[in-house]
């Protein structure tokens, strides 16, 4: 056993109910993970503590709460949180649990409020979670209330491109440090224009009877499954006209960093190499940008990021642990297009269920008709009625059912195909870069970071 593995065990391994060590469920030599991680209730509880309460979890987008007092209720793990716009334009994320007796103080999922009053004993809190008042406070408590300690528990807030993340670990690194090299690529998706992104309405939610790691393992980033699970797209003429990796969309430049994975479309054979990046972008505006918006890329991204967007535009992927993004050209049945950005988060609901949340976004400054077409394309592609994603909802629950059996749970996720770091010449970005057929590097990276969190009780990574 390697020294670093012994160190990991020494940090904080966990003995599961049958005596198995948690660390034994990942095999670093053969690159396998036991299916047991999908159904073991002890592991699930540990995830709530060690992963969801310590990492940056996506809870929404700033354009859902544009005005002071606007709020939505969302989830960090199984903890309900109030995400509220402050009078100064900032955002607060408060645990939706009254510190007095534990009732949820906010009972609508969306609205506008100047304060939150717990229905139980009418304690009152500000939209920033601060304790404001309790009825008959003097008669009841005299001076005994330690008011600063009785506010709603606060999560830290981080945003990128208007996407809001919360983290209950006060010692955790910042959102930027946590995403690390992956942050650079997230900016290429989320921070392209002067006007920024806007949501097209409230998110979809559906309960899927699968462990949340079904989609999370796929998210970072399994390009290979298209050839199996999304084979109906061949019959509809969208994919796989020939049985070649190219025709199935499997050739790309993939990135893995900090447990995240994303795919970048390789335009080297599509667009003339002797053009400047600016000329390339004008000839083929990136997905979701109007030709006029192309110039804004330089206002918001570094020249190196612009070069990646021009030559290898990032498209789909996931930031660790559970924030997925799908930037999609949005082809429609009538030949038009409604390009959109779909965002997902996987909200755990016990070992064998999760909620899939789906937001659809566009650049705020695209024409209204484009937004209408984006809605059409987005809802028909991903989420609850998405022609593509519906079939993913068959794979994930199936994996979880497989992991119920005494024999099945000892089966493994297997990762056998790796590029390692093999970037195209002159690649200007950070992270591990994988040029060619989409392989397992990103997904294995997701598991490595997952076990880093699960095998340490200390803050931060």
């Amino acid at each position, binding site marked *: 056993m390697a020294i670093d593995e012994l160190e990991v065990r020494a940090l904080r391994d966990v003995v599961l109910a049958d005596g198995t060590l948690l660390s034994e469920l990942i095999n670093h030599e053969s690159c396998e993970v036991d299916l047991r991680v999908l159904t073991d209730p002890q592991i699930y509880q540990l995830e709530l503590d060690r992963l969801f309460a310590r990492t940056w979890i996506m809870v929404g987008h700033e354009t859902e709460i544009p005005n002071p007092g606007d709020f939505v209720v969302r989830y960090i793990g199984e903890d309900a949180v109030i995400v509220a716009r402050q009078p100064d334009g900032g955002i607060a994320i408060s645990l939706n649990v009254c510190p007095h007796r534990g009732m949820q103080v906010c009972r609508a999922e969306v609205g506008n409020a100047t304060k939150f009053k717990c229905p139980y004993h009418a304690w009152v809190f500000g939209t920033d979670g601060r304790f404001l008042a309790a009825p008959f406070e003097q008669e009841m408590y005299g001076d005994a209330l330690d008011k600063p300690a009785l506010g709603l528990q606060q999560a830290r807030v981080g945003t990128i491109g208007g996407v809001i993340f919360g983290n209950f670990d006060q010692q955790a690194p910042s959102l930027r440090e946590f995403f690390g090299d992956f942050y650079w690529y997230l900016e290429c998706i989320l921070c392209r224009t002067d006007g920024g992104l806007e949501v097209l309405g409230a998110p979809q939610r559906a309960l899927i009877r699968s462990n949340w790691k079904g989609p999370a393992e796929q998210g970072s980033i399994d390009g290979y499954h298209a050839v199996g699970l999304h084979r109906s797209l061949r019959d509809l003429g969208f994919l796989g006209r020939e049985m070649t990796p190219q025709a199935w969309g499997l050739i790309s430049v993939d990135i893995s960093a900090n447990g995240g994975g994303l795919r970048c479309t390789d335009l080297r054979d599509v667009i003339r190499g002797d053009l400047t990046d600016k000329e390339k972008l004008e000839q083929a505006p990136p997905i979701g940008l109007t030709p006029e918006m192309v110039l804004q890329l330089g206002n918001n991204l570094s020249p190196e990021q612009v070069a990646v967007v021009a030559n290898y535009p990032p498209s789909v992927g996931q930031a660790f642990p559970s924030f997925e993004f799908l930037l999609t050209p949005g082809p429609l049945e009538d030949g038009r297009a409604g390009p959109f950005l779909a965002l997902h988060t996987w909200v755990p609901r016990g070992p064998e269920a999760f909620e899939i949340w789906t937001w659809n976004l566009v650049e705020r400054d695209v024409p209204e008709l484009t937004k209408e077409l984006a809605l059409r394309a987005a*809802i028909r592609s991903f989420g609850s*009625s998405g022609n593509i994603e519906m*079939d993913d909802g068959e794979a994930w629950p199936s994996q979880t059912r497989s992991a119920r059996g005494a024999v099945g749970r000892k089966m493994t996720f297997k990762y056998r195909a790796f590029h390692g770091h093999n970037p195209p010449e002159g690649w200007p970005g950070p992270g591990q870069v994988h040029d060619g057929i989409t392989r397992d590097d990103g997904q294995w990276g997701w598991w490595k970071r997952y076990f880093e969190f699960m095998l340490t009780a200390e803050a931060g990574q």
Partner: protein
Amino acid sequence: MTVTERSIGGLDEPTLGPRIPYGDPLYCAIVDFLNEEAWLLDHDLLDGWVGLLDEDIAYFMPVRQTVLRSAGSGFDPRMGHYYDDLASIRLRVRRVLESEFAFAEDPPSRIRRHVTSVRVHRLPEPDCYGVTSSMLLLRNRWDQPTYDLVSAERNDVLRSSGESFKIARRRILVDQVTLGTPNLAFFF
């Protein structure tokens, strides 16, 4: 194929004319139409079902959020679980009927649609009717003994078409904020 430029979404309601009561031949004809439609869907006769849709159908199932009583119904005017027109519905049907790889409904679920509480109103446009109905949909999948339930109100606009009707608009107002079924690989 004509594709409408108007938004498929929105929560505006048509101006309802007089209600057509139970027992009226027109009421009976519309209930008969809805029963026939549910039968086609329950029996996976999707081509027949598509034949009941008008060329300009707007098929919208808005997402919903829990809001205080004072804030209304919680339906979102833009974002939907469904946001479809005839072309996209035809594509969905083609996927189910022509691909061996539409796994979300193959093997198919057993689905039963119960249509009740039908209310019919005349609309200002001639030969158009505003029809609301309740639908309780039970979906049984794999060997599970339990059902996924979807309960919803349907707000339809029906147009007379020869001896029968065409569905010009369907809005599916679901009673769940979080759908209790993993996907909507079926129609309402």
